[in-house]
């Protein structure tokens, strides 16, 4: 029983991290129709920035804020300088471009921060919560993870649904020409989309790192599952991203615990194919499939 519960709970926490990562991908997809494979190394970079600050003796929260801010800047910068020229062009070229960025950022981090294990602190306790005699596999940091991802999702939904800027971003993503006619500064909106996405990605990076080891490749395992989670939910829906992340996190945790950890990626493939066979546009696909 305890094993079942703990497997479910760790899956849940892990799922939340996938969800945060998937959210970042969804944001970028919504704004620029680009799948950003460089998301993981971008988050790795900003986490290293936080680590440098924390190691210099400042508080965890200063590092945390710096990472998010760095994400914001990095996202905007990359969109402006590198991504802008391929927007609206061949989808494959954009994919290759972000893959190129992936490799470059990786190598840069290894040169700048060193290719070795460094431990990253967590702001809350890492001990599981005790209920009576049993400890359940949920600790302060896990709760922090779940809450922060839910808050971010809520904020994003609110942004898109209720604010002027959110509306403009949606317009810019939906049809640039029409948006321009309506006076939306499309370029700014796209930059904002990338900046926000990178911020969410940075959050995911810090959440994964908490209480664990970081090195230039520490985010790599999230690349695949985060992307699969986003696709599972339907790339246009923030809610879908979170749900996709949770489904994947919990079910993979059970596969790993009760079947065999070698089959985790295969299970991800099976789940994805099951969902996509029934709904080729993901769980939360918007009604008529858009032709790109």
């Amino acid at each position, binding site marked *: 029983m305890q094993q079942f519960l703990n497997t479910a709970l760790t899956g849940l926490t892990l799922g939340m991290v996938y969800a945060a990562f998937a959210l970042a991908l969804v944001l970028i997809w919504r704004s620029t129709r680009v799948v950003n494979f460089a998301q993981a190394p971008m988050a790795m970079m900003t986490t290293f920035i936080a680590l440098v600050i924390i190691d210099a003796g400042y508080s965890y929260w200063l590092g945390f804020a710096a990472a998010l801010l760095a994400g914001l800047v990095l996202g905007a910068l990359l969109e402006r300088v590198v991504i802008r020229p391929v927007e609206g062009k061949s989808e494959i070229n954009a994919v290759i471009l972000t893959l*190129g960025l992936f490799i470059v*950022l990786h*190598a840069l981090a290894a040169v700048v921060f060193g290719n070795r294990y460094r431990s990253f602190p967590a702001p809350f306790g890492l001990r599981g919560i005790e209920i009576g005699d049993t400890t359940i596999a949920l600790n302060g940091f896990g709760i922090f993870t779940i809450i922060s991802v839910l808050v971010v999702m809520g904020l994003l939904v609110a942004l898109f649904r209720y604010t002027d800027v959110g509306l403009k971003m949606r317009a810019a993503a939906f049809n640039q020409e029409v948006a321009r006619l309506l006076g939306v500064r499309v370029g700014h909106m796209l930059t904002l989309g990338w900046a926000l996405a990178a911020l969410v990605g940075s959050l995911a990076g810090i959440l994964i790192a908490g209480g664990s080891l970081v090195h230039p490749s520490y985010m790599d395992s999230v690349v695949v599952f985060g992307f699969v989670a986003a696709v599972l939910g339907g790339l246009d829906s923030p809610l879908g991203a979170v749900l996709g992340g949770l489904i994947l996190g919990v079910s993979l945790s059970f596969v790993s615990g009760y079947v065999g950890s070698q089959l985790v990626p295969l299970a991800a493939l099976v789940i994805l194919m099951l969902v*996509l066979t029934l709904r080729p546009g993901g769980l939360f696909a918007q009604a008529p499939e858009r032709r790109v």
Partner: protein
Amino acid sequence: MRSRLGSVWGSTLGRHLLLAMAALVVVVLVLESVSDYRNTQLAAMAYLGIAAGGLTVLTGINGQLSLGHGALMAIGAYTAALLLPDRDSSVPLTAVIVASVLVTLAVGTVVGLAAARLHGPYLAGATLALAVAVPGIALYFKETLGGEQGLRVVMPDIPVWALDLAFFVTGQDLTRSRFTAYLGWLTLIVVFFLLANLSSGRVGRRWRAVRDDEVAAELAGIDLGRARVSAFMVSAAAAGAAGAVLAFTVKLAAPSAFTLTLSLTLLAAIVLGGLGSLSGALIGAALLTFLPSVVTDLGTNAGLSDIKAAELAPLVYGLVMVAVILLAPAGIIGSLRGALARRRTKTRSTSPKGTAA
């Protein structure tokens, strides 16, 4: 004579046949004149080239994005490894390649059927999951597939007739690495010949039509699903052949050889060379084979430590990818073609032969 050659050249098939013969001559000349070390590098280039050629058909010509071709190569390589467990195995190498192709073709058909309904990022996601799932299967079935350690591939002795033939033609002994390079490049020529014929024929026109405009293709009576699945099958078959050549070259089929990186490398090869062209795939493969060691050597010679020099290779390689997409989005071949076309319109009067080389 001239006119007969001209008529052979006039038919697509004949032209491809002549090109294949020419390529064969070039391959023999190159492989015979370079060192053993270069031969092993060229063998590596051959399997990357074969797989990239197959991916060109799928992604460049049919417009389906696959991030999972490394997994298909793994299936080809494991098939080859299972057929070559020790020195006494009596399966001829050509049969091994054919078996690898058939097994991968079967898997590719299933994947293609499942993938045919998916578009853009959804297809990317599914093939990405495939790329990481397949190595896991090899880990799970430890008994037959060797787990993390993988399966050893034991190459049989070089057949006597091949040794004799090589000595007769070139006057020097056939080394093992040269033999492997020949296997790779002969396979490459056959695969490219078949791919070129397929894609310039009726099937290829259907693939392109589906890529360019689905609605128009459907109106023209093309079965979208069939066109997609057939492209996937052809592409998977090529990946299977590539996997077999990889197994011959590396002499091992292990999960860690088929990570996501391999799949992404293939994709990079076809885009760098120029999407949709087989020669572009070959150039991309050449770039990916030779660039890393050249860059690392430059780094070491410039006095960098081994670790820094090793990081230099991915750094430069990533920068080249970014630069090609930003500065020459059509890839190397595409941009060359563009430049040639522009030059030709300027100097219409001069013979186009001068630009062919």
